């Protein structure tokens, strides 16, 4: 029993952190732009493909692996800049429905591009050799790569909290998020801040793609399967709140993992029940962000 509980908690934490790596950029850009970027998962998927193309299926060491993830992050950041100039910038002052539908279209477009470039075959990427092994904790085998994912997720959360609440840049971003007009009148270059936020969000998506690519088989659908969890986490956590999203990701991960362990024949159903319960119980999310209604 106890080893099973350890297994469920550990696996849930690992999945939760994987969700968080994807959801971080999503909630970040929502907090500042008030646009829910439905294409976020597609750019995560492009990041994973770019990492595969640059680094190959057998990364030489953990350092080349991380370097490849950073290359993917930079490449997706460039794509993010282009997307911002071509699409997102034009959506800032229109009804949010149009923004949702346009980013939905963008998502399909990216999936189509991935199919055209890489085909529909599945690819597999191995974890780097340093973490490609298992250790025994409390009677169950635990993969070191999942420990690495958990560590990366926690580090990312800490970094985002520090940037948002302890730095000058975070202060500027929160000012723009709360009231762009007022921020502009006190001399902040609002368009630049918005553009940099969008690029930062895409960089996070690309980085998540690079780090998580050994986690699953790589296919054009990997974005859609991941981003749904990310959306649910963002909605449960409170739109735009990094802390809420972080906790919601852990919750989702543990529920999903318990579901897979104890009711394997109905795997993947419990999180939808969790979503419904969370929306009825706390419709504004666990940590409603300021300035969002």
């Amino acid at each position, binding site marked *: 029993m106890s080893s099973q509980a350890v297994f469920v908690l550990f696996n849930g934490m690992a999945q939760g952190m994987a969700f968080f790596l994807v959801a971080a950029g999503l909630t970040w850009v929502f907090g500042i732009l008030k646009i*829910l970027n*439905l294409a976020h998962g597609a750019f995560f998927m492009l990041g994973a493909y770019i990492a595969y193309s640059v680094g190959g299926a057998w990364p030489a060491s953990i350092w080349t692996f991380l370097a490849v993830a950073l290359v993917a992050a930079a490449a997706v950041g460039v794509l993010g800049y282009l997307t911002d100039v071509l*699409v997102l910038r*034009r*959506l800032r002052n229109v009804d*949010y*429905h*149009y923004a*949702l*539908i*346009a980013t*939905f*279209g*963008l*998502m*399909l*477009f*990216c*999936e*189509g*591009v991935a*199919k*055209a470039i890489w085909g*529909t075959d599945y690819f597999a990427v191995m974890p780097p050799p340093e973490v490609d092994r298992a250790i025994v904790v409390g009677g169950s085998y635990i993969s070191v790569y999942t420990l690495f994912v958990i560590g990366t997720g926690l580090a990312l959360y800490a970094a985002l909290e520090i940037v948002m609440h302890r730095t000058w840049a975070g202060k500027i971003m929160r000012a723009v998020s709360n009231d762009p007009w007022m921020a502009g009148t006190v001399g902040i270059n609002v368009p630049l801040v918005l553009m940099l936020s969008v690029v930062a969000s895409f960089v996070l998506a690309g980085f998540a793609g690079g780090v998580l690519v050994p986690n699953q088989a790589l296919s054009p659908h990997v974005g*859609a399967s991941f981003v*749904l969890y990310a*959306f*649910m986490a*963002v*909605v449960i956590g409170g*739109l735009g709140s990094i802390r809420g999203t972080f906790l919601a990701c852990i919750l989702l991960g543990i529920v999903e993992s318990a579901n897979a362990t104890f009711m394997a*024949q*109905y795997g*993947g*159903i419990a999180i*939808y029940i969790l*979503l*419904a319960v969370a*929306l*009825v119980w706390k*419709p*504004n999310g666990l940590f409603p962000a300021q300035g969002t*209604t």
Partner: protein
Amino acid sequence: MSEASLAAAEGRRSGTETRLGLLCLAVLVVLLFLAPGLVNPGILFVIGMTLIQAVFALSWNLLFGFTGLASFGHAGFFAIGAYFTGAALRYDFHLPFLAVLAVAGLLGALVALAIGVVALKRLTGIFLAVLTVALTEAMAKIIGFSPALGEQDGLGNIPRPVIDLGLFRIDLTHGDDYYRFLVVATVLIVAALWWVVHSRLGRTFRAIREDADRARFVGIDVARYRVISFMISGGTAALAGALSAPLTRIVTLDQVNWLASTQPILNSLLGGFTSFWGPIVGSAAFSTINYFTRGFPGLSEIMVGGILVVVILVAPTGILGLLGKLRRRALGKGGRK
């Protein structure tokens, strides 16, 4: 979406134009009814699917264009109708076919009610967006676990129904006969939706779309009418799905995913969501595009996604919006916004 284009799309036409429009519509319906004798079976199937997509798109647009809510998982409702009808015909539920259709629509409306109770109380569209997407994904999961629904392989070999009206029987087992039934059903559903949109109920929906706060101020129970709109929309989408099952004779999980949910959005926006007829025009236009580009598989996402983004950015009122603009310019009635 200037006021002018909205007004132009929603009426204020002269009597002759209305009569001309009705005449075109009547000719179109007669042509559709005679189509089995005019075109080959392949094209007939495409026309039948277009009719179903048109009903599906109309159901989505009742929500978006007339009530101001966007569903991103409408394929879930479509699948409810399609799978229920498929199962009812294949396992012979001993229900008359018309009752099967009614139950399918009712099921869709009930699921919409359940979602409405969860989400519509405090509805920023983002909650509804995530919830409707989640509904569709959850449904796909449940179907994937159900051996009776064919799991991953889909539900095949669905027989076409025979309608027994007591006095006489209508045999729809032949494809052409079912197609004619489909035309009649589509016309009836479109007429019903037209009536809803132009009734007091439809005006209430539009008041909510224009300004929910003001609608509340004049005494409209906004949450309640949003749920009603969502139920009509979900029920109609399920009905579209129910009509599709005997036509295609197979129901698969391909109809329960994001791409399937985009189809009504795309058709409505392409045709013009500010007009009642927009989704129908969009469905016809899209089927035509699809028919002529069918040799290039894999590019469908690029096409669909690209068209969607371009339409939103360049021509948010769609084909009918553009035509309306041209018409006003031709008549010299202030083509500028």
